[in-house]
Every structure is written in structure tokens, then in C-alpha cells.
């Protein structure tokens, strides 16, 4: 290039006005969309907060620790639902995290030839595509009849443990938790698998090169290196479990009082309460439901913030 001395036809390096316009328009357009999403969230929160205001003024923070939900007396407290939400989500995580991470390990390593592995990866992700009402139906007609004898046995033999202190009555917290576990399993498995696949091949080779076995490599290098991704997936799954409505409403029994810690007893979650009562609610009850919705909103927010902190604190720098 340096040898060309022909200045008569300089390269046209100017950008046309049209491309500049498109460029600027793109920046402004995407900015506006991003802000709109934030605004939408704020508007929803404000609206819910405004509608909840009468209940907030009447019950205050006592709403969170009272387990009395009586439409007739106009007394509302959401402890039963908050407890139900936390316990069903916890049961779901307890079951789904080990299985989901196990599936992720199996599907990210070369245990299987790709021709067999790919369909399995697809099937696991397909679990996430089943509508939650179908999970609910399956729970009612298949899972609960199957679980009942187990629940009766647990109550008869381990009834001294508070968790199993009541006799099961068909639907209940444990059935809802179990179905939630199945529903969040694909989220955990898929995100954890992506996290493990993304661990640089050099780290595997380094571990193998030092004489680590496959298991040592997986547990001491790959899992820690993929930890932030896995934790992110678990938190996303927890958010899903806390907000899940249809399947839980169909399986939890919808009892608005809590009289034991038993997971075999019936209960309700914040979202099942909302789904059950909104259609016929009026007056202060609507406001109380809005308050409960705000609490759920807050719970998921706390989970997400905690997740962010955990991921930042423990994520390994790659």
C-alpha cells in the first residue's frame, strides 16, 4: 500500500448520513427498551404496593407472623403461606440440586457417545416444556396415590419427628414439593451443564496431567470452576419454585391454617392463596392478597440478591 502514490482517487472513508442515523437510532432504541423494562417492574411494584396499602396500614408487620386468614372476621396473616412457600421450595431444592447437578456432570463429560447423549440432553430440557397444569394432573392421579402409603408409613414409624407428625390426607406440602423438584430439575441440569461445559479444556488437561482421576478432576476442578454458574442456576430454579402456582395449587391441599411442622399435612403457598381467592375476593381481602403478593415479590427479590452475593463471593476467577 505504501508504494501507491496515486492521490487522484482517495478512498471514501466518510460514513453516509443514513448509516450514522441508523447507528444513533439503534443506540437510542435499545436504551429506551432497557429503561422500559425497568419502568414496567417499578410500575407493577408500585401498583401492588398501592393496592396493598389498606392491609399494610391495618396489619403492619404482624401480617408476616400471624397465621390467621379469616375472610369472615376480616383478619389476615400470611405466615401459613410464607411457611408453605419456603418449605415446598426447600424440599424441591433438596431433591433437585443433587440430581440436577448429577445429570449435568453425566451429560457434560464423555461418559456417553454424542449420538446417545444429545437426545438425553434434549429430553431433559423437554421436561421444562411440560405445562404446569399437566404436572398438577399427573401429581393428583399418579404421584399422590403412589406417595400415600409412604406417607402413612413415615407417620406411623417416624411420627415422633415433627416433620412427619400428622397422618397424610392425600394432597399436602410433600407432594407439592416433590412435583416442584421435578419442575425445576431441568433448569438446574441445563444451566449447570452449560457451566461445566464452559470450563476451559486446559483446566481438565492440567488436572489429568497431574495424575488426577476423572472423579478427582470433576469434584476438585470442574465443579468448583463451574460453581458460579451452578449457583446461578439453582437460584433461578428457586425463584421458579417459589412463584409456581398451578401445580402447587392442585397438589398442596390449600389449607389456610398451619398447626404443625409436618410436611405430610396440607398447606398453602402465597401463590396458591392468590390463585384460590382472587376470583371471589372483595374489600380488605383484595388488599390483603396484594400484601401477600408484595411479600412474595420481596422473597424472590431477597433470593435473587442473595444469589448475586453468593455468586460474586465464591465465583472462581477463570
Amino acid at each position, binding site marked *: 500500500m505504501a508504494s501507491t502514490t496515486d492521490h487522484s482517487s482517495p478512498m471514501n472513508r466518510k460514513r453516509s448520513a443514513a448509516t450514522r442515523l441508523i447507528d444513533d437510532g439503534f443506540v437510542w432504541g435499545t436504551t429506551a427498551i432497557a429503561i422500559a423494562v425497568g419502568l414496567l417492574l417499578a410500575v407493577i411494584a408500585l401498583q401492588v404496593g398501592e393496592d396493598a396499602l389498606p392491609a399494610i396500614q391495618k396489619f403492619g408487620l404482624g401480617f408476616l407472623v400471624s397465621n390467621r386468614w379469616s375472610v369472615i372476621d376480616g383478619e389476615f396473616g400470611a405466615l401459613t403461606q410464607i411457611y408453605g412457600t419456603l418449605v415446598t421450595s426447600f424440599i424441591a431444592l433438596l431433591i433437585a440440586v443433587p440430581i440436577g447437578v448429577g445429570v449435568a456432570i453425566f451429560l457434560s463429560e*464423555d461418559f456417553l457417545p454424542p449420538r446417545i447423549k444429545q437426545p438425553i440432553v434434549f429430553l431433559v430440557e423437554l421436561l421444562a416444556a411440560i405445562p404446569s397444569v399437566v404436572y398438577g394432573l399427573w401429581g393428583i392421579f399418579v404421584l399422590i396415590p403412589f406417595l400415600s402409603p409412604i406417607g402413612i408409613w413415615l407417620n406411623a414409624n417416624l411420627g415422633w419427628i415433627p416433620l412427619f407428625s400428622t397422618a397424610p390426607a392425600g394432597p399436602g406440602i410433600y407432594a407439592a414439593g416433590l412435583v416442584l423438584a421435578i419442575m425445576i430439575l431441568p433448569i438446574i441440569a441445563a444451566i449447570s451443564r452449560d457451566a461445566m461445559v464452559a470450563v*476451559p479444556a*486446559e*483446566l481438565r*488437561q*492440567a*488436572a*489429568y*496431567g*497431574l*495424575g*488426577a*482421576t476423572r472423579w*478427582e478432576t470433576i469434584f*476438585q*476442578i470442574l465443579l*468448583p*470452576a463451574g460453581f458460579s454458574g451452578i449457583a446461578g442456576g439453582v437460584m433461578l430454579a428457586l425463584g421458579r419454585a417459589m412463584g409456581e402456582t398451578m401445580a402447587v395449587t392442585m397438589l398442596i391441599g390449600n389449607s389456610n391454617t398451619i398447626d404443625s411442622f409436618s410436611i405430610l399435612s396440607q398447606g398453602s403457598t402465597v401463590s396458591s392463596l392468590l390463585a384460590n381467592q382472587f376470583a371471589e375476593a372483595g374489600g380488605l381481602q383484595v388488599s390483603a392478597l396484594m400484601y401477600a403478593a408484595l411479600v412474595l415479590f420481596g422473597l424472590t427479590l431477597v433470593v435473587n440478591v442473595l444469589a448475586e452475593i453468593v455468586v460474586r463471593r465464591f465465583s*472462581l*476467577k*477463570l
Partner: protein
Amino acid sequence: MTSRLQSARQTDSVFHTEDLNIYYGNFLAVRDLSIDIAKNSITAFIGPSGCGKSTVLRCFNRLNDLIKSFHIKGKIYYHDQDLYASEIDPVEVRRQVGMVFQKPNPFPKSIYDNIAFGPRLLGYKGDMDELVEQSLKQAALWDDVKDKLKAFGTDLSGGQQQRLCIARAIAVQPDVILMDEPCSALDPISTLKIEDLLQELKEKYTIMIVTHNMQQASRASDYTAFFNVEANSKGQRTGYVVEYDRTEAIFQSPKEQATQAYVSGRFG
């Protein structure tokens, strides 16, 4: 650790290959390799890209076993033990034959834990602090990091990271260290530091190094194998050793035309 490998009789040549042919599936990657690697020496593998130097290097610690289609014909002996005999556990081989890779690859753990990783796998019972210090000193990294052993290995500079990887390899007290272009991602000063380090390390270990840098091979190695590559009628490129000799001989009086052309920079 009373393995078959350990019980192998110590011989002057650490590795000895006989008519080694390396395949990926039906593809012949390297052919007819017969080579002896002398104990406590530095052996360099040089040659143009794609001639199979790294592939050969990874045969000596059986790291190629991770690739499903990989297989060999011929023999590799480690001292007097057949390295690919069915009763040999590749994991044990890698505990004897350490490796340093092209791109520095410290674990996302602390400097201390990086070094301690290998010894912990082996169930090392001695004083870990001392082993870490010794390994870092041998890798000429101790003075740089002695005050920040808890810092992440991945936060070090590229040259320091590579010395950390060398220290990590040394910590399991291997017999041989394989190095696959260990300086290709480093600046000239870091490169010189590692070359100096190699001279010290060969007192205790046998070192085999793949390099694209011919000055490095001529400066740092005792023996040099020059690899070249030829394509067959189907366009498959197979590597082979053109000439293997003392490094001075390869660089000053090569017997083969191709070696002469390569070391004088006329191709490659």
C-alpha cells in the same frame, strides 16, 4: 505407590520408542518413530506446524488416551516397562511424567492450593508448607509470591503463571517433565527466565520440550529431534522424524538437507 511403574528398573534412557506409529482413527498422524530420551537431559522437538510434535509428546504421559480415536502401533518403553501395556494405569503414568502446557493453566485456586493439588491427590503426608516452598523455589517463583500464597494463581502475570504451572508439576516429584511450547505465550524476559530454569531443573528431572523457537532449542536443549510432515496421495499429513542428534550437530552440521533448510530459517 508401589506400582509396576515404580518397580521398573532404572535405565539411562528414560524413554525408548520402537517403530511407533500414532493414529487418530484410520489417520496416521506420526510414523516410524524410534527415539531414545536420555536421563537428566533436555530434549527439544522442533519442526513445522502440524508435524505431530505435540502429539508425540502427549504419548509419553498417555494424555492422548483422553481422545477416543487415538491409538498407537509399536512400543514406548518407560525405563524397561512397556508404557502402553494393558496393566499400566494411565493415571499412574501421569504421576511420574508431569506436564506443562502451552497456555499457562493454573487452577482457579490460591497459589498454595495450586501447588498442593498434586501432592494431596497422592496423599502426601509430609510438611505441605515446606513442599510448597521448595517447589516454588525450584521454579524460581518463591520470591515473587512468598507474601501472597493465598492470592489466586490466576491473578499472576503470564510468565509467573507458567512458572506456577512448572512448580505445580514439580511438586509431585515426577521423573520426567513434558513441556508443550511452554514459552509461546510469554514475553522474551519471561521466556529467558524459564530457559534458565530448565538448566537447573535438568539436574533432577528429565525434560522434553516442544518448541517453535529455534533459538530456544539451540540455547536450551542437549538433544534435538527435527520433525517434518509429508502428505500422502489422499492429502493426509503424516509427521516423522527427519533427524535426531545432539543439539550442536543438528544446528551446526545437520546430515539432512531438510534439517539444514529448517534450522537456517529457509522454511517452516
